């Protein structure tokens, strides 16, 4: 066996080639997926949440809110795309925080890899989880009677919008996960952020009966825009305005929180 020290090419500058960067992200994403394989229970939330929520909301509120379960499925399930996306996104920070507690992150931070690669790989594996969950939601809802009145392309667009917004929220969640001390704190704060967003929106009920101040909030709430655009993409109706709103939010959240999260990753402790 070789006894030479430093078989690796010395790096003369701070930059990492795009190819190496991609390879690092690939290796780290593989790690994330292997962790899921080793701990299948970590998938329970992604698999069961869409099923349980759909059943609960459709049968508990369906009759009261929309007059019939069938009508309510068409109304609520598109909104659930965003609701599931954001719930899964907020859980990312909790996981990242526990990762930091174990010292694995210290190891990564002493390796000559791109600053963002650990977080990007997390975003990728979480997006896979989220996509699976959204597909389960739609499939299960179709079993309960959901009809796609438009077409497969529109359905895909609806999924893509939910994923894009989820990605923006993943960066927020990761920043929280690194900024707060314990996983419990991350979970608590995350909950406080998403609860008002989820219920102060058009996701579960039309906003027309809400008081004025709440209606004002629902109008700027991105989850309303997400619910409205998904509804239009599945049931038909004007899409452009709410969809652009969602896209603007997604891009904006990513543009602001991704660099902050990466900086926090670099500086932590």
């Amino acid at each position: 066996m070789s006894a030479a020290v430093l078989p690796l090419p010395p790096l003369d500058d701070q930059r990492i080639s795009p190819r190496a960067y991609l390879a690092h992200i690939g290796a780290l994403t593989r790690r994330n997926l292997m962790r899921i394989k080793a701990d299948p229970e970590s998938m329970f939330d992604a698999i069961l949440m869409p099923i349980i929520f759909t059943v609960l909301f459709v049968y508990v509120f369906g009759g009261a809110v929309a007059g019939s379960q069938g009508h309510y499925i068409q109304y609520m399930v598109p909104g659930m795309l965003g609701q599931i996306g954001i719930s899964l996104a907020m859980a990312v920070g909790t996981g990242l925080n526990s990762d930091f507690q174990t010292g694995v992150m210290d190891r990564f931070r002493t390796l000559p890899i791109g600053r963002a690669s650990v977080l990007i790989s997390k975003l990728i594996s979480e997006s896979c989880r989220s996509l699976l969950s959204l597909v389960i939601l739609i499939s299960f809802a179709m079993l309960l009677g959901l009809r796609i009145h438009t077409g497969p392309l529109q359905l895909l667009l609806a999924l893509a919008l939910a994923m894009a917004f989820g990605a923006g929220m993943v960066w927020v969640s990761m920043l929280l996960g690194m900024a707060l001390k314990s996983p419990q704190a991350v979970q608590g704060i995350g909950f406080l952020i998403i609860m008002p967003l989820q219920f102060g929106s058009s996701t579960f009920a039309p906003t027309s009966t809400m008081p004025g101040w709440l209606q004002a909030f629902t109008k700027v709430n991105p989850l309303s825009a997400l619910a409205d655009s998904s509804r239009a993409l599945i049931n038909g109706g004007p899409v452009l305005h709410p969809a652009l709103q969602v896209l603007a939010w997604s891009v904006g959240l990513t543009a602001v929180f991704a660099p902050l999260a990466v900086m926090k990753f670099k500086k932590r402790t």
Partner: protein
Amino acid sequence: MTKSAGSPSAVTVRGMAKYYGETRALDGVDLEVREGTVRGVLGPNGAGKTTLVRILSTLIRPDAGSATVAGWDVLQQPRQLRRAIGLTGQYASVDELLSGYENLYLIGRLLDLSAKGAKARALELLERFSLTEAARRPVKTYSGGMRRRLDLAASMIGQPRVLFLDEPTTGLDPRTRNEVWQEVQRMVSEGSTVLLTTQYMDEAEQLADDVTVVDRGRVIAEGSVEALKRQVGGQTLTVRPARPEQLDEMVRCLAGHGAVAARGELVLPVGDEEQLTALIGELGRRGFGVAGIETRLPSLEDVFLAVTGATAKDAPAQPAERNQQAEQDQSRMERV
């Protein structure tokens, strides 16, 4: 392992300081480690050892001072520096859910080894650290010692030029400890420089060319193991009488030289060779039968107590280790 004093420096630390509120974790540390040598950093709990290692491996930023590792600046050139180092932190930093093999393979890939290269290197290191049998099991099923070994293997994947080991053998059984020591020595023979922190005197004696003693964020003593021991004092002479019942008489006879009885043996300090020769002659003239004579240098533990002085009582009592230490000192005594 002798090194020329002129060999270039692998680690240079100047005026390093790190404060946590009122706590001065590091308070103006200077340090120089020559290439190809092993530096032991000794200190009690809270001395600042981990803080020093974390700064040198770019995990935290110092509040003042500068440092280079393998020629790279810790603040200005972190990425080049990271390529040149390996770190085994005080607490395990391996992925519990992945297998030992997958842990090492991942790090190989992150160090830009090819898939084939990363696989070969992972298997080689698993073999070296006797982990081949457990290679495919998730790390969460490993014992503490196995985890530690995997952690060490992980820090060696890139054949780093400078290896930082923060208390690498804490909590290991003697056999595993020896295995770790061997691997560290092997890394050094392959050209690496090692900076290791420890609270164990015998570990420093065993591995380190030079030792830096830190306490409360400051360097309080530095030098080769031998030099530090000499600083504390001369040698200790131990005489085992041929007939145990004569011990008291022997001690009385040499009481003027500071002789005492301990564990069935006569123990006394000797300043130099002439004094030693004279003492042995004296015993012979008086007709005492001698079954064994040994001299030893003071242990690093003695050194540590001497230089930390008043703070020594704050130093960790090293339970278990203390006895083990004494035994090892015994076994290392030189025959005269």
